[in-house]
C-alpha cells in the first residue's frame, strides 16, 4: 500500500522530476506484481473464510420450513436461557482474562528478567502444557478439584476445612481450568514484548534518580503494554468460543455459547438455528476487537506483525 500512495504523491507534484513518469510506471508495475503475489492468499481467504461465513449468515435467515425469517434471532429474546448463556460466556471470559493477567504478568516479568538459559528452561514449563491435550488437562483438574479430589482430601486431612470446598462442577471449576489453559496465550506474547524493552531505558531512569519501583511503573510497565494488550485480546477471544473445559468442569451449570451452539444444532432441524448463534458470536467478537483497537491503538492488536 505504501508504495502505491508514495507514487501517487510523487506524480501529483507540480515540479515533477524528469524521470517521474518512469518512476510512477515502475511503481505501478511493482504494485501489480505484489498484487499478483498476494492473489493466491487472497483467493484462499475468500474461499475458506469469506464464503463459508457468508453462507453461515445466509443460512441463519431461514426457519425450519425454509422460509426467510428472523425466527432464529428472535429466539434469543424469547428464551431466557440464551441471554443467560450469553452473559455467562462474557462473565467467564472477563474473569479468566483477569486471572490470566494477574498470574501471567508477574510470570512473564520474571521470565524476562532471568538469565537467558534459566529463562529458556522456565519457558519450557510454560509451553509444555501446550503440547498436552486440553481434554487431558481438564480431566486432570477434575481429579484434583472434585469433592473427593486431591485438594479437598489434603485440606480435610490437614484439618484446614471440615467440609469439602465446592471447586469442581461449578463456576469456579470452569475459571480455574480455563485460566490454566489460557495462561500461555498471555505469557508468550507478553514475554516476547518484554524482551524487546531496552534495558538502557531502565538504566537511564535509575541514573536520573528514579527508584526501582518508579522505573518499573513509569518506564517498564508502559513499554510492556502492547504485549499485554495483545495477550489479553487473544485470551479473551479464545475464551468466548471455549467448549471442552466448561462442558467438563461446569457440571452442566455453566453453559457457554459454544456449548449452546452444539445443543441447538442437534435440537433444531434447520442449520439456521445454530448458524444464528455463530453469527452473533462472530459479530460480538469483531465488535470487541474493534473496541480494543480503538481503545488501545493499532499497536495492541498489531503487535504480532511488529516482530
Amino acid at each position, binding site marked *: 500500500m505504501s508504495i502505491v500512495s508514495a507514487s501517487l504523491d510523487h506524480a501529483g507534484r507540480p515540479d515533477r522530476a524528469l524521470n517521474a513518469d518512469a518512476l510512477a510506471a515502475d511503481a505501478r508495475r511493482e504494485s501489480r506484481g505484489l498484487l499478483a503475489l498476494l492473489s493466491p492468499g487472497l483467493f484462499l481467504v475468500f474461499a475458506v473464510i469469506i464464503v463459508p461465513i457468508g453462507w453461515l449468515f445466509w443460512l441463519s435467515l431461514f426457519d425450519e420450513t425454509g422460509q426467510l425469517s428472523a425466527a432464529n434471532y428472535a429466539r434469543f429474546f424469547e428464551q431466557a436461557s440464551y441471554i443467560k448463556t450469553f452473559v455467562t460466556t462474557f462473565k467467564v471470559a472477563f474473569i479468566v482474562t483477569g486471572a490470566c493477567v494477574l498470574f501471567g504478568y508477574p510470570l512473564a516479568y520474571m521470565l524476562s528478567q532471568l538469565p537467558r538459559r534459566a529463562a529458556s528452561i522456565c519457558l519450557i514449563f510454560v509451553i509444555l502444557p501446550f503440547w498436552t491435550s486440553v481434554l487431558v488437562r481438564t480431566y486432570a483438574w477434575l481429579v484434583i478439584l472434585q469433592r473427593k479430589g486431591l485438594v479437598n482430601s489434603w485440606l480435610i486431612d490437614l484439618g484446614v476445612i471440615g467440609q469439602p470446598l465446592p471447586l469442581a462442577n461449578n463456576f469456579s471449576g470452569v475459571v480455574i481450568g480455563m485460566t490454566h489453559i489460557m495462561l500461555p496465550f498471555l505469557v508468550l506474547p507478553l514475554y516476547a514484548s518484554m524482551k524487546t524493552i531496552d534495558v538502557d531505558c531502565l538504566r537511564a531512569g535509575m541514573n536520573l534518580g528514579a527508584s526501582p519501583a518508579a522505573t518499573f511503573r513509569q518506564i517498564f510497565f508502559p513499554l510492556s503494554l502492547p504485549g499485554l494488550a495483545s495477550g489479553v485480546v487473544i485470551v479473551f477471544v479464545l475464551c468466548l468460543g471455549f467448549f471442552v473445559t466448561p*462442558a467438563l468442569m461446569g457440571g452442566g451449570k455453566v453453559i457457554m455459547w459454544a456449548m449452546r451452539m452444539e445443543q441447538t444444532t442437534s*435440537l433444531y432441524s434447520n442449520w439456521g438455528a445454530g448458524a444464528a448463534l455463530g453469527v452473533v458470536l462472530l459479530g460480538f467478537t469483531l465488535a470487541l476487537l474493534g473496541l480494543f483497537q480503538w481503545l488501545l491503538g493499532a499497536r495492541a492488536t498489531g503487535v504480532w506483525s511488529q516482530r
Partner: protein
Amino acid sequence: MTKRLCIHGLTVAGLLASVAVPASAADTITVASWGGTYQEAQTKAFFDPTAKDLGITIKQDTTNGLDDVRLQVTGNAVKWDITELGADECARGSKEGLFEKLDYSVIDKSGINPKLVHDDWVGISYTSVVLIYRTDVFGDKGPKTWADFWNVEKFPGRRALSGSQATETLSVAALAKGIPIDKVYPVDIDGALQSVDKVKGHIDAWWTSGAQAMQLVKDGEVDMASIWNGRAGTLKKSGAPVSFSFDQGVLTADCMVIPKGSKNKDVAMKALAKFVSPDLQANLPLYVDNGPANEKAFETGKIPPERIKDINSAPENVKKQVLQDPAFWRDTLVEATEKFNNLIQQ
C-alpha cells in the same frame, strides 16, 4: 446427541476413509452406530453373523446422531446404508423425510413393540435410565424411587440428573410426582417442569454424557444420579459401591434407519431384517447390557436364564419401567427442551 461428542474425530476420520474408497460394490454396505463397547457388541451380535449369512461385507462407521444423517441426506452425500439413532431422533428424522421406507415383507416385525415399528424406522435395542446410589453413603437403604430422589430431607446428599437429555429428565420428574408408570405418557410437560423446579436447587451436576454420569458417581462427586443402565452395570462390575434397579426406569429405544439415497438399499434391507431377527437380537445381551428390541429373542433359549433378569427389556423388567414414547417427543422436543434449559440454567 451429546453422549457421542467424544467420537467426533472418529467420524471425521471415518468419513475421510470412506471418501478415499471408490463406490462400493453392491455386496458391501456401511453401517454406522455409536462406537465404543456398544458397537463392538453389535459387531459380534449383528454385523459379523449377518455378513457371513448373506455373503456380504459390512463396513462400519460411527455416528453422532441425527445431525450426521441430515448432513449426508441434505448434502446428497449419503455414505451410510444403515445407521443407528435414538428413537426420538428416528421419529424426528422421519418427519423431515430423511429415511428410505422399510419393506416389512423383507423385515419381520413380529416381536417388536408396535411403537417402534414405523414406515421408515424400526427399533433395534433398549437403554434404560435408572436411579443409581452409592452404597457407601446409604447402605442398602438408599433412594429406590424418583420420589425418594426428590426427597432431600429423607435422603440428604449430592445429586446429578441429565441436563442434555431433557426427555429423560422430564420423564423421571413426572415419576417423582407420583404419577404411575402407565400414566407418564403423554407427559404433562408443565407439570414435569414444576417437578424439576422443586429439585433443581439440590442438583450438583447436570450431566451431558454417559461417561460424565459414570465419572460423577464413581468418584463420589455425587451420591445419587440418573444414569444409563449400561454405564451403571459397568460401574457395578468394576467394583464401585453402587446399587441400582429397573424399578421406575425409563426405557428408551434405539432404532435403525436406511438414510434416503442409500446406494445399497436392497442389501441394507436384508441386513436390517437380520439385525432385528430374534436369533441375532438374542446375541446382543450376551455382550452388552442393552436389551434386545425384539422380545422373541427371550424365547430363543440363547440367553441364559440368570442373565435374563439383568436385561432391561426382559418382559419381567419391562413391566417395572416407563417406555419413552418417540412420537410424543417428535412433536414436543424443541419446546420442552427450550423450557427445560430456561429452568435449569442459572
